[in-house]
């Protein structure tokens, strides 16, 4: 995945309305009118957000020519999560090692406390 594609995904996700639209589309396809209703926004305003989402490849148009329903495209979202996942694994590796070190430290501390009591 190119970094330009990632940029487009993240720019599209940066807006709370667009995230809410994606949340709605995760439950199934919806027309522009159906999407506009819960957001109390005009259809042109929703269309504008949809255009950004479409450009980022996050939303596509369904087959019904009359309703022109929009549907969620999950692939770029998965790429966006993978992107963070690699960074997360970077820290997970370190913290797993820290776990082992803390176990050693706990044992050492116990021994020292025993010695002090004697």
């Amino acid at each position: 995945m190119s970094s330009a594609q990632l940029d487009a995904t993240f720019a599209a996700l940066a807006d709370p309305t667009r995230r809410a639209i994606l949340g709605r589309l995760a439950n199934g396809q919806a027309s522009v009118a159906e999407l506009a209703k819960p957001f109390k926004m005009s259809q042109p305003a929703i269309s504008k957000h949809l255009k950004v989402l479409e450009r980022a490849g996050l939303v596509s148009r369904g087959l019904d020519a009359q309703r022109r329903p929009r549907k969620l495209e999950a692939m770029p979202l998965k790429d966006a999560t993978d992107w963070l996942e690699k960074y997360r694994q970077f820290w997970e590796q370190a913290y797993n090692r820290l776990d082992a070190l803390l176990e050693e430290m706990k044992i050492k501390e116990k021994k020292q406390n025993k010695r002090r009591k004697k």
Partner: protein
Amino acid sequence: MSNKTTVTAEPGKQELFIIREFDAPRELVFQAHTDAKLYEKWVGPDDLAMTVEKMDAVAGGSYRFLHERGGHVYAFHGVYHEVLAPERIIGTFEFDGLPETGHVIMGTTKFEDLGGGRSRLVHQSVFQSVADRDGMIASGMERGVVDGYNKLDNLLARLQEPNTASA
């Protein structure tokens, strides 16, 4: 039982959070962050050799770490702003390998007592720009890709050994 590391980076923001619980009191987790000999043992990914060149974990003190892999050295440095045992470390962080200097990150690490000998680490990094933050995260991704290729190399080498693949 293992504790899972959580990373949160909201799109379009200049910060990221790293959260992790430990089956150890926060005093020990704090110590592992401020004692150079201990820090060396765990920081960084498995395949990098880590050296603490300098680590003066007091307010106004500084640090410099070197990560080495395959002849490449990656250096990081920063200054401690506050070191409050056993609950908080605040300081700056800068990767020396960038084309220009000045891309400084401010980090706050909090160590919370969960009782029963357990604790939680909450780290916040604040970047100068969204691009800086996303670049830092992406560098982790590139690393992952390199690791992936290394694993693929190993796999390919094994497949090429006669008779082992079918055994």
